[in-house]
């Protein structure tokens, strides 16, 4: 019996070695395929995630909630301390509320004076965060909204306060949001009030650095960072965070979004703006529809008549 096995092993070992070799070759072939035809493989990846993660939702959600409860109990222990802190903050907030009310009134007046219309097309879809990327070096989350909700790659995702990331990879029921802290994330931003433009490049830390600032003397810690809308990547004016000086003396952005607890994200439906393709297009977008020299647009005439 034992002898038989020993003999059969002599046949098994080389065959097995060849099969393992083939397996490794196959895996490299998968990598090559990914390198050559990345979009197709990434779509396949999105489909796999789409198939796997919603099935795990029943388990993911209770565990996440349970962890939240444990965290809640831990915070009960610090209740008195927290209460003091909250009172103090409330005082400050009251002062801010007054300031905000006054500013709101002022803002409303100014908007009225300028006859500004906000972009009505800027609506949003809200999704629940299903899962983490699971990899220590990639910062992304999965949302439970996808192509069936009309999501498109490149749209911006925010939590209640600030920009969180952009959609990259849409499945039927899920979509992946690459967070601003991911090392592949680069977005154009404007620093207010100086109006300097910069790039916010994620580097796997909580405070991504600001790069290519034209004149960094004009930028101070505490300035607001908002998306600039350059390159049509994002709608302009979404709050990103504020400037801080990092421990390495570089200017970094402290993100406004609360990355510690991302639960719901709103995905902004953005629509591609007008694109100027050549120099002529800058003057006359569409020669057929362009108003002739003496022609006043119909609406303006109607308003004038009233």
């Amino acid at each position, binding site marked *: 019996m*034992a002898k038989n*096995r020993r003999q059969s*092993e002599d046949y*098994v*070992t080389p065959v097995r070695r060849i099969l*393992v070799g083939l*397996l*490794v070759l196959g*895996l*490299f*072939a*998968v*990598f090559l395929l*990914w*390198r050559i035809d990345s979009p197709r*493989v990434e779509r*396949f*990846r999105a489909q*796999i*995630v789409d198939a*796997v*993660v919603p099935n*795990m939702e029943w*388990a*993911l959600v209770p*565990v*996440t909630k349970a*962890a939240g409860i444990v965290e809640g109990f831990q915070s009960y222990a610090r209740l008195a301390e927290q209460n003091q802190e909250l009172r103090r903050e409330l005082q400050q907030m009251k002062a801010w509320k007054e300031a905000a009310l006054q500013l709101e009134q002022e803002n409303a007046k100014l908007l009225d004076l300028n006859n500004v219309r906000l972009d009505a097309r800027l609506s949003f879809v809200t999704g629940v*965060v*299903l*899962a*983490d*990327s*699971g*990899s*220590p*070096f*990639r*910062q*992304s*989350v999965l949302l439970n909204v996808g192509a069936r909700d009309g999501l498109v790659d490149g749209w911006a995702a925010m939590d209640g306060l600030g920009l969180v990331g952009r959609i990259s990879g849409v499945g039927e029921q899920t979509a992946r949001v690459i*967070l601003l*802290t991911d*090392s*592949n994330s680069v977005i154009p931003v404007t620093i207010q009030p100086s109006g300097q433009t910069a790039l916010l490049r994620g580097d*796997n*830390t*909580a405070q991504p650095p600001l790069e290519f600032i034209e004149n960094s003397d004009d930028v101070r810690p505490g300035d607001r960072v908002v998306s600039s809308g350059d390159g049509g990547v994002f709608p302009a004016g979404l709050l990103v965070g504020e400037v801080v000086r990092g421990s390495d003396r570089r200017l970094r952005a402290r993100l406004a979004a609360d*990355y*510690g607890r*991302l639960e719901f994200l709103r995905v902004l439906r953005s629509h591609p703006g007008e694109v100027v393709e050549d120099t002529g297009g800058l003057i006359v977008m569409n020669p057929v529809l362009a108003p002739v020299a003496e022609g006043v647009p119909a609406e303006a005439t109607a308003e004038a008549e009233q």
Partner: protein
Amino acid sequence: MIDPVTLHRWVLAGLFTGLATLIVFARMLPLDLTPGGMPPPDAIVLLGFAWVVRRPDFVPVLLFAAILLATDLLFLRPPGVATAFAVIGLEVLRARSGFLRAQPFAMEWANVAVVLVLMLLAERVLLGVFFVEQVSLGLSVYGLLVNLVFYPVVVGLSVWAFGVRRLAPGEHAAEARLG
């Protein structure tokens, strides 16, 4: 009637799959999304290595490769590369498991460390050749160190919690045979 040895192997392969699923699940929980902090160890690879050194017949190479390829796809890594090198590492350790049986744990740890370092180097070189964007070397070395520190933990768990032990000489001679 199923041969008890075969049954044991199937149960352990099932246990390996279950543990891998659990690890993937735990890593996908959206608990804290602030970046930084310690990268989690590549627990599936470590588990596979710890088992294959002790019982080469408990980690079928196809199962190992399939699980890792699935995690590559789920975790946004370049698919196939890390898996291929992990499979090579697994087979190297499988071939050395006979030698390692007689050695103390420190020797096994050193062997696994060398395999992990070579896997990381090979992966970085290959990705570099194909101009794939990679994380900085510092971060991957940090991840490697975490893996090395966690290896004894994984071994301890495997031995005491799951009963994956080396066979004493003469014990179930049939079981010790390579599967």
